[in-house]
């Protein structure tokens, strides 16, 4: 659905455009049909620029891409026809009603039955009762829902969501998230940039951590395993120093730490190693109370990859 090869984007900045700003550097990735892909990175990492490139709004300086089967730079109008975009700011026509806003975009996207599509999305987003109110009177959450409806009005093959829950209160965020999950269950291809790592973990099949360059790309669980391995905690009634060496000597176990009466062990395959370790500990006289797994969050992976600094807007 989306295939990029060595995409780069350089902006000329400064009063005389004498400086170069490399917003995207050598981006190669593939997003499959029906996949929800999370594009994560700090502010100014080039995420919005990437979305703009892939939706045919701006041209890459280098590289090639195919979006919805169309060549970027050659078939941009067709790309725009086949993708929907939720921009970072909803950008609605505030003096106009929700119905009018959607009608305008349905016409611009050449939707065959405009009124039917408008009615469908107004109802789906729970905006039917307020459809004749000007958007200026809408709450932030309602505007975001309307912007989502606008992005979907022409039933695009691919949906680009740029920070879909940014600035929304928890309730509105949940509504938007639930809707994205619904779209996911319909098998839509979604390319989503977000700061909300919990959201990415919950919604995305794969995530790419990006900071001008693609730093890593995989499913959240694989990333976790790659970066931290799987950490298992053995809660013991008492602790003997000899048990550390005992566990460290078992095949597949590594990085054994003692925290109070707990042994924390990195295991490549806990399903195989756990019974062996428990048997060894019990044989050595330990009383194993219970065993747990430490789950590293996507946030830990993200912070490990990009650090926690805010880099400002590109």
């Amino acid at each position, binding site marked *: 659905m989306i295939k990029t090869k060595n995409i780069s984007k350089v*902006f000329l900045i400064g009063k005389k455009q004498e400086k170069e700003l490399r917003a995207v550097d050598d981006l190669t990735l593939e997003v499959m049909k029906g996949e929800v892909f999370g594009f994560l990175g700090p502010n100014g990492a080039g995420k919005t620029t990437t979305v*703009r490139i892939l*939706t*045919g*709004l*701006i*041209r890459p300086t280098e590289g090639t891409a195919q979006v919805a089967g169309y060549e970027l730079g050659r078939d941009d*109008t*067709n790309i*725009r*026809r086949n*993708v929907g*975009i939720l*921009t970072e*700011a*909803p*950008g*609605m*026509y*505030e*003096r*106009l009603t929700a119905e*009018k806003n959607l009608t*305008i*975009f349905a*016409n*611009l*996207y*050449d939707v065959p039955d405009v009124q039917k599509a408008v009615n469908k999305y107004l109802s789906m987003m729970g905006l039917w009762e307020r459809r004749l109110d000007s958007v200026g009177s809408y709450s932030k959450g309602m505007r975001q829902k309307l*912007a989502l409806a*606008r*992005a979907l009005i022409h039933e695009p093959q691919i949906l680009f969501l740029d920070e879909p829950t940014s600035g929304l209160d928890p309730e509105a965020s949940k509504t938007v998230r639930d809707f994205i999950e619904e779209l996911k269950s319909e098998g839509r291809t979604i390319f989503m940039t977000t700061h909300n790592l919990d959201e990415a973990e919950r919604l995305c099949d794969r995530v790419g951590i990006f900071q001008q360059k693609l730093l890593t790309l995989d499913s959240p669980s694989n990333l976790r395993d790659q970066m931290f391995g799987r950490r298992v905690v053995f809660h013991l009634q008492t602790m003997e120093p000899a048990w550390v060496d005992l566990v460290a000597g078992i095949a597949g176990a590594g990085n054994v730490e003692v925290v109070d009466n707990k042994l924390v062990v990195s295991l490549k395959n806990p399903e195989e190693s756990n019974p062996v370790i428990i048997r060894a500990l019990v044989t050595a006289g330990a009383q194993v109370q219970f065993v747990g797994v430490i789950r590293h969050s996507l946030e830990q992976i993200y912070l490990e990859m990009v650090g926690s600094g805010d880099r400002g807007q590109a």
Partner: protein
Amino acid sequence: MKHVRTIIDKEWSEVFKNRWVISTMTLLPMLFVAMPLVMLYMTTSSLPVDLPAESAGLPAGFTEVCAGLTAGECTQIYLLNQFMLLFMLMPLMIPTTIAAYSIVGEKTTRSLEPLLATPITTVELLAGKGLAAVIPGVLISYAAFGIFVIGSLLLGLSTAVINYILSPIWLLGILVLGPILSVIATIVAIYISSRVSDPRVAEQLSGMVIIPLMLVMFAVLAGKLVININFMLIAIVICALLAFGMLRLGTVIFDRENILTKWK
């Protein structure tokens, strides 16, 4: 064409919901109609009707226009020569109000990106934005001129003065040159609107398109220029060529990427 109609519909829906814009668009033409009518009304009752045109003391170049007319008629025609230019100023000023806001307004409300993300082409977008500004400007100018003609008839002006108002010079000027000027003003305003980051700056800069016409008005006022049919025909040809060139250039220089990324 559907995309162009959609943009026009969108622009008008937004513009005509703003009472201030409507006020600006209607008050100015009302003023431009009232001013010459008041002037004609006052001069009709006060000017001598039995003296020859030469005795009116008007600039030498103008007396040819007044051949065979009385001093009163000639004075009214001389004054009309200046006021009629106001009907050509209207199609310059009214579209500017709409066009100057058209792009920068979308930038500031962040609605430009979703708009540019649709399959609309640059030509369609510019045509929609341009026509949404030009059409009201031209229609209001035509309506204002129509009201002025009716007002002139009701004032009981002499046939010579009415004939002058409805002469080919002014019919060409108002019905043909006016719309062409309107197109030029709109292109300039849209271009400025796409380059600046503040709607107020766009409006102020776009307002400068009236300067050339103001210069013509001053030249007429100073007696340095008499608007005749040759002047009008030459002006139409030059302005039409200019408008055509600007239309072509506009679609080339309107760069979506620059407009989207270089405005903060």
